[in-house]
């Protein structure tokens, strides 16, 4: 079985000179649920943006065996669904339905296909009833779920999450964890929420100052107090 995501020596420097990613390499297999943890400023968001091809990093990224390049990017984008940290900026259309329909519409699918995809995505997150509502008027938890639907509409093979449980009250958080557990896609979740990690992700990565400092079974890493403290996780 080939890895669904293969990253080799990924390096990224911000325009102002800050080194955000320093030679990150990793492999993720289909069906895996992997947590990406680390202190603030470690480069987690940057890594996700680079994987989605929004930031152009040095090194190689292969999705489903296809090398990420300028030419292959539009196609590969559909395979990696990136859910941003703030749903405010991810939901930019007047209604929920239009937001979810954006991706298939952009792809040039037929109206029937678009509607089918949108409905399917909304159903997967349990938000069909909200189709005609304005994203602006939803609660944080509802917005997060719609944000996930907007990405599911691309039928991605893998989902990338940036701090999915941030800003949620306990009930919404529980519902989100429940939702994530049921998603069939491969998951890479960047988060501080170690409790969520324990629930959902058997494998855990620790990123600190742009370098991958740990990669192993969650229960082992979480038991290593010294490791956690050293990298701002406890």
């Amino acid at each position: 079985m080939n890895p669904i995501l293969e990253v080799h020596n990924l390096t990224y420097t911000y325009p102002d000179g800050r080194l955000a990613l320093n030679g990150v390499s990793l492999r993720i297999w289909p069906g895996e649920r992997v947590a990406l943890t680390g202190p603030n400023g470690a480069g987690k968001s940057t890594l996700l943006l680079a994987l989605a091809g929004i930031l152009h990093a040095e090194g190689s990224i292969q999705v489903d065996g296809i090398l990420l390049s300028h030419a292959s990017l539009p196609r590969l984008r559909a395979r990696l669904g990136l859910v941003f940290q703030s749903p405010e900026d991810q939901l930019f259309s007047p209604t929920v339905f239009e937001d979810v329909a954006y991706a298939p519409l952009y792809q040039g699918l037929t109206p029937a296909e678009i509607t089918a995809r949108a409905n399917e995505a909304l159903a997967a997150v349990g938000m069909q009833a909200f189709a005609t509502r304005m994203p602006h008027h939803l609660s944080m938890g509802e917005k997060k779920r719609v944000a996930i639907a907007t990405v599911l509409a691309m039928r991605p093979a893998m989902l990338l999450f940036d701090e999915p449980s941030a800003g949620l009250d306990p009930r919404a958080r529980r519902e989100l964890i429940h939702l994530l557990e049921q998603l069939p896609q491969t998951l890479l979740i960047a988060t501080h929420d170690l409790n969520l990690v324990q629930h959902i992700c058997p494998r855990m990565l620790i990123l600190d100052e742009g370098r991958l400092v740990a990669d192993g079974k969650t229960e082992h890493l979480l038991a290593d107090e010294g490791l956690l403290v050293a990298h701002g996780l406890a």
Partner: protein
Amino acid sequence: MLYSPQPMHIPDGFLSLPVSLALWLISILLIGSAVRRLEKTLSEREVPLMGVLAAAIFAGQMLNFTVTGGTSGHLLGAALATILLGPYPAMLVMTSVVSVQALLFQDGGLVVMGANLFNMAIVGVWSAYAVFSLVRRLAGKARWGLFAGGFAAAWSSIFLAALACALELALSGTSPANLAVPAMGGIHALIGIGEGLITIGALGFLYAARPDLLSSENRQQALNRTVWLGGGIIAVLLTVFSPLASSHPDGLEWVAEQLQFIESARPPFYEIIPDYLVPGIPNEALATIAAGILGLVVVTLAAMSAGLLRRRTQG
């Protein structure tokens, strides 16, 4: 933060001194009157609103959408600011945006800022206001008035600001009128469509989320004078378009190439020049158009100044 220079911000050196000074004077006069008027009539909550909205417009100018392969549409925002806030606050908002763009991002010169302010904060705002009021008047209570008005206002603001810009370049002797007017006018007739589309997109969004924000301030200003102004502007547009339309039957396609040309700034100029110098555009026609527009502008300014003075003496 990505920032790309807008095609309508004139840099220093492109306008002659007399033109720059004259426009500085006019802008200071008009913006100064607007400030004095606002200091008296502004409610306190509008001050933070203007500042924050100015930031939104500034940032909003980064939002683009692909028109064709190489070009993209942008937002200027003068029309949107006018529709949301009313003409006087919009003047201040656009002044802030234009001045900071010039100072901080070097988009637009400082000597010629009077001209840029005139084009964007005065012509842009007032043409949008006049056209919007006119369309709204015609539509009465109907909802299409908001969107048709918004589109027309946005388009007019861009087109007329571009014409003013072209006239300034011509009066300064930097670009001859028979080059500047069709080039700027043509390109911005297209860009104006983009502005119009984004504006109604934004208005649609706001109408659905907070319709209260749209129905407010502007009612009090529906004077006859504005309708007259709106009509006058439409007359100008017709005057400008008829000669252009006849001498350039496929003018807009040609202009679209110009759009690509301006974006890439690479192709050899002599491929373009022959079109400019085609003897189909008589200089007299353009001189008349220019004179007509200039006359209209002068009369408009006189009317506005008279109106402002009158209001001041009435206390």
